[in-house]
């Protein structure tokens, strides 16, 4: 690694927070929205910090099934704003006792529908993390609830507003890459065999029964929480249900929200090994690689992820390739966008990303758009229809993988195929009621 030396002079870097005063003095705006965060983990706090920094947020409550998360994040909210939010282990109690104007939903996927519908019913505008459901029926239920209310729902797909995405999409839509016949979406990382983790008693600070909620109850192990839920198919949908939503949305954006006619996906765990779930130990169960093909009327899109081998010879591990008659356009993440002309005599065109670090996102812009939609009635840039459609495509890929064959899609449902249509929803555990 080449070593670069850079030195900040004394005083240019941020100083410590004085104990007596809040660190962030929010910009003074007239309206302060009484805000609740449901799911106070790493990403939820990323969103909440942006909300606070935007200056129109008064954090009145946090809900989480982990009392440690509540405590540490309530402390941070106090450090940032000088106010201490109420904390709840059950989001239902929060909505019952607090008057909430804005709810941020950042729980694991299997909770998104119940949390969001409760928030809308409580009269809150909702900023919900993607995906908008663990099964397609849940996402549809959020869409229904949203349509029946006048509340704004923004889905956390910040790539809809990120500067290099906006300019890249303009380049594509104005024919910069010529006529595009195929798109490849991909996310690759390193990895290898997965050894089982011993099950253990849930830590004292975690309400494991409530964590599992409507999902099947499984033995606890330290890999799941905090931060590991995405690789357990009872709670989420692996890489396609995570990154896939972002990149599928880029394709949908580019093609003006067309719908695929059919979806076919294969994948498995040849490297991580067979999923294990016994009384003693368990592994994750999401695929370590997956390919999903989406057949649209005028083009084909395919998803590919692998969690081994790293980025490979192309020197990029993430994004979308739009293959057009004039060349290949790469919509990336930290590496911005790049157009490689088919005519090698022509120059490569590139634009850098403009992200917020350390986590490389554009939540600040997305939050500003959310506030604008609430205040002016403008259409949010990543509204529920958009989130629902991208989520649906990712979940159709998972559905085909589980079914082991291709499926048809008419834009709303899987026609004339009851075996497949059954997987559009799942049974909830115990007293939890699947939303409609």
């Amino acid at each position, binding site marked *: 690694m080449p070593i670069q030396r850079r030195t900040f002079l004394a005083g240019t870097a941020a100083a410590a*927070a004085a104990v007596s005063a809040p660190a962030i003095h929010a910009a003074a705006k007239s309206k302060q929205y009484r805000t609740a965060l449901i799911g106070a983990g790493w990403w939820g706090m990323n969103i909440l910090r942006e909300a606070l920094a935007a200056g129109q947020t008064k954090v009145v409550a946090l809900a989480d099934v982990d009392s440690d998360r509540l405590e540490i994040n309530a402390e941070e909210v106090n450090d940032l704003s000088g106010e201490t939010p109420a904390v709840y282990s059950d989001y239902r109690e929060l909505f019952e006792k607090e008057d909430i104007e804005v709810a941020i939903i950042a729980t694991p996927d299997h909770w998104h529908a119940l949390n969001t519908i409760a928030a809308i019913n409580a009269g809150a505008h909702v900023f919900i993390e993607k995906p908008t459901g663990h099964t397609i029926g849940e996402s549809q239920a959020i869409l229904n609830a949203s349509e029946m209310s006048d509340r704004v729902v923004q889905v956390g797909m910040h790539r809809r507003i990120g500067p290099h995405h906006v300019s890249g999409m303009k380049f594509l839509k104005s024919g910069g890459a010529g006529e595009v016949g195929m798109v490849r979406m991909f996310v690759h990382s390193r990895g290898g065999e997965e050894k089982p983790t011993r099950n253990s008693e849930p830590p004292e600070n975690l309400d494991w029964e409530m964590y599992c909620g409507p999902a099947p109850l499984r033995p606890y192990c330290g890999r799941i929480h905090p931060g590991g839920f995405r690789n357990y198919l009872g709670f989420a949908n692996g890489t396609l249900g995570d990154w896939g939503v972002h990149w599928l949305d880029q394709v949908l954006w580019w093609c003006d929200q067309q719908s695929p006619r059919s979806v076919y996906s294969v994948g498995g765990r040849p490297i991580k090994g067979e999923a294990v779930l016994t009384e003693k130990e368990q592994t994750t169960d999401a695929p370590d690689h997956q390919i999903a093909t989406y057949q649209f009327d005028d083009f084909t899109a395919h998803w590919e992820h692998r969690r081994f081998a790293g980025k490979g010879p192309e020197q990029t591990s993430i994004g979308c390739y739009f293959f057009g008659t004039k060349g290949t356009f790469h919509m990336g993440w930290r590496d911005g966008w790049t157009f490689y002309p088919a005519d090698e005599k022509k120059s490569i065109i590139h634009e850098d990303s403009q992200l917020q670090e350390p986590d490389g996102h554009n939540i600040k812009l997305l939050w500003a758009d959310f506030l604008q939609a609430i205040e002016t009635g403008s259409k949010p840039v990543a509204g529920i229809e958009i989130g629902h459609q991208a989520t649906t495509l990712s979940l159709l890929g998972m559905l085909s993988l589980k079914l082991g064959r291709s499926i048809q899609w008419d834009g709303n449902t899987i026609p004339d195929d009851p075996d497949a249509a059954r997987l559009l929803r799942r049974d909830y555990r115990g007293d939890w009621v699947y939303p409609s």
Partner: protein
Amino acid sequence: MNTLVRRAVLSLTIVAFLLTPLSAEDWFRWRGPNLDGISSESDWDCDWPEGKAVIAWRASVGIGYSSVVIADGRVFTIGHVDGHDVVHAIHESDGTIAWRFQYPATLDDRDFEGGPTSTPTVDGEQVYVLSRAGELFCLNVGTGESIWQQSVAEQADVRLPGWGCSAAPLVVGDRLLVNLGAAGAVVDKKTGELIWSSEDRESGYATPVVMPDSNPPAAIFASGKAYVAVEIETGRQLWSERWLTSFNCNAADPIISERRMFLSSGYNRGAALFELGKEAPKLIWKSKEMKNQIHGSILYEGCLYGLDGDMEAGARLRCMDWKTGEVRWSEDDLQPGGMTLAGGRLILLTESGELLVAPADAEVWRPIAETKVVEGKCWTGPVLSNGRIYVRSIQGELVCIDCRS
């Protein structure tokens, strides 16, 4: 402190500095003889022509993160080899093996490369080793023969932290302090007999630190959720400073100086300085600008030198004012793997095995020497002892660099 007192302290410090022998010293325990991560050796050389240092020897010690300790001409460390953790005693002079001692252990490479993470402690004729599974071994320093061994985790009936035990055992008088449970455990260093233990909760990963001038003697243990002060003799809790972080990962040793205590953890926890008194610690400042995920900072002449942020993503090397928490400077692109301080100079090992030396300067990071010494990922701090710098990679290449003038 008023100016007069400060001047007096300053002149005393200078006198003390002048009186400090510049001769070699054994780094016989974690964070060194003075438990501050600082070696007083100044008579060492980093004149590395064309970036090439004199490599005295290289040895293969197995996978792991264990640091080295040095006593009476021998270097001790632990590494994982084929289903065992192997304690290596290596001759300081030529890198040949004096003895090895091994115990069965799993590599346990969940979320990282695995292998032992704690560092041995030498105490006279004994060397103490704590395994990730919470077993303590007392070995003869000369021969490597086992004097006694005990599973502290089993005796105390407490759970292991998520990534296993990683603290070095600390000798205080006849007692051996082990970071296990809600507020540590103490065994008799001669027999391994458990004297007291604490509640069944996850410990943290930092090594216990003795409270200076405490009477009766007290130590601070990092649990998964707090830094707890306890009387060493009885285990009686004096106070507990709640310090939550993701994954219960309190890994940086607390730093105590002039009745102040500095705490820092990663995963967006950050740092804080407390005033210590008879009662619970009183907060002086807190900051998100120093997040010690794995390595403790080093306090030197009123400034903290530390690694801020997530190691995997690339931590920042920072200098922070002890009194105010103000960041004096920040080097964001070094990808540091570990650091030590000797004779007023910072010795930084990058993740990819480059060694950089720079004066410990509160104004600026300005390296005066640089050399590539090892291939592969390095997350273990370098150690300087008796004029030699020791560097290890996670895969277990141990390199001895001869820096004697």
